[in-house]
């Protein structure tokens, strides 16, 4: 195709689509404000963990998430490739065994193995699952890098690609919100080199190191499109789980509390949908940074070659 493209929405979906089109020689402008707290990707963890997510997610999430780290690195976004560590508390040992059974791409470490990878966790955990090929990035840095290179547009002209997330519910009636709450803390006493996931039947937690002693704790999953501030209960649970992971978190400074609603379709998989002249890309659920590159590629393939990508479910006038 030729001509210009206008992308509505400057969250991770919109920025990835505009970037992918631009690198293929199709000029694309973004119509939105600069990345900020209005986009739910602002609050993301930034884990590129296709194997861990595969424990509960559809196999398509793993399959399409595997290329995410390379895509981000190709765009000049720093990606830390140190893997993911998954642990459980000793009273809940069965959880780790189940997680291992239901996922791939890992190996089981014993206590010295854990201590060798993350000295600050020491021998607190007698075993852990190590997903060596996984990685993570800083979501706000990634959004800023992509956004800084893309032209902005005041009006929608040419082909319109709608990536407005939950705001597109006016057109995508089967889209719903899944609320997530997160906490950012500074804890210079503790050093972690990779995201750590704590399995817990009631309050599962992940901790993503952001560097400089800063950690992101996330994230709740509530079937609600409420975007109001985090509840005391959510913060209490996240911080309690972090304290269970390591008591040093009790001394951390709380820098930020955040909440937003992720856009999701009923199967929690993304959709590309053409209705009339508009192409929609949406429904990244909790897999924004993991799946946006693959969905962006599918959108670009569709525009360039009229292919019908895997996540496309409607193509009509």
């Amino acid at each position, binding site marked *: 195709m030729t001509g210009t493209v206008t992308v509505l929405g400057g969250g991770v979906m919109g920025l990835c689509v505009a970037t992918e089109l631009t690198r293929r020689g199709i000029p694309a402008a973004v119509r939105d404000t600069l990345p900020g707290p209005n986009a739910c990707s602002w609050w993301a963890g930034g884990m590129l963990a296709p194997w861990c997510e595969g424990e*509960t997610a559809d196999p398509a999430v793993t399959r399409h998430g595997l290329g995410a780290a390379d895509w981000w690195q190709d765009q000049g976004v720093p990606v830390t490739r140190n893997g993911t560590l998954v642990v459980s508390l000793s009273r809940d040992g069965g959880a780790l065994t189940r997680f291992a059974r239901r996922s791939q791409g890992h190996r089981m470490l014993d206590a010295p193995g854990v201590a060798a990878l993350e000295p600050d966790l020491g021998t607190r955990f007698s075993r852990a699952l190590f997903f060596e090929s996984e990685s993570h990035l800083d979501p706000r840095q990634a959004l800023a890098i992509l956004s800084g290179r893309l032209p902005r547009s005041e009006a929608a002209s040419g082909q319109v690609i709608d990536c407005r997330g939950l705001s597109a519910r006016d057109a995508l009636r089967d889209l*719903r*919100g899944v609320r997530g709450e997160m906490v950012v803390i500074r804890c210079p006493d503790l050093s972690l080199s990779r995201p750590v996931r704590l399995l817990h039947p009631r309050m599962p937690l992940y901790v993503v190191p952001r560097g400089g002693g800063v950690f992101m704790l996330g994230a709740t999953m509530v*079937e609600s*499109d*409420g975007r109001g501030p985090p509840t005391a209960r959510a913060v209490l649970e996240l911080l309690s789980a972090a304290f269970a992971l390591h008591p040093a978190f009790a001394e951390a400074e709380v820098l930020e509390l955040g909440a937003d609603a992720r856009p999701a379709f*009923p*199967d*929690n998989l993304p959709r590309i949908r053409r209705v009339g002249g508009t192409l929609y890309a949406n429904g990244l659920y909790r897999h924004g940074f993991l799946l946006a590159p693959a969905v962006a590629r599918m959108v670009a393939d569709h525009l360039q070659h009229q292919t019908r990508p895997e996540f496309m479910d409607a193509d009509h006038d």
Partner: protein
Amino acid sequence: MPVFYGTTIDSALMLGTAGYPSPKILTDAFARSGAGIATVSLRREAGGGQDFWALIQSLEVRLLPNTAGCHSARDAVTTAHMAREVFDTDWIKLEVIGHADTLQPDVFELVEAARILSAEGFSVFPYCTEDLVVCERLLDAGCHVLMPWGAPIGSGLGLNNPHGLRALRAAFPDVPLVVDAGIGLPSHAAAAMEMGYDAVLLNSAVARAGDPAAMAAAMADAVRAGRAAYLADPMERTDMAVPSTPVIGRAFL
């Protein structure tokens, strides 16, 4: 088939709606389970869960909203009022949590909330322990269903006190009884039905299975088998072997 407050339900399986990998999988699990009643929580989603509730309503099963997460009679009564507004039903699964670690019901607050809500015209389904006296008090308070736990919520431990559950069945032959919570396997569900329970209510056993829809189907089979076995009047257990063919005179001819 169980009859709750005058309504006959065409399945003895009641299924919760929390913790599934996706709404699509939840829908599949309900279809495979044939469950006649869906429980739904109101509290955590308060103020934004309309999309999820709409999805639950589209399951085309009878809805039983619950007061999960309430810790006092007052909380539970308020939540029941909200549930009646949102789901347009007088049915309420009354849950008043008394202990943070075991999620054991606070039976004192429970009886109080049951009395208030029954007087207000609610059809109350109390989540209780298998304590006979507590159950009597709940019936006095106006409940016409009892839902004793099998084991702590989400534990999957099965029926921790089979004797107590059997005693409850014997004590209240005419009250619909449901084992609620603790079921992890189809064998647990079948065991409850074999005791003559009218239904079982479970959630995590299906939602947290690797293949929730397949586990839902297995639970449906177990509940049917358990009920059929109860109606077939099982043989008595004996400590001595009883051969099914005579032993004396085996080499008679």
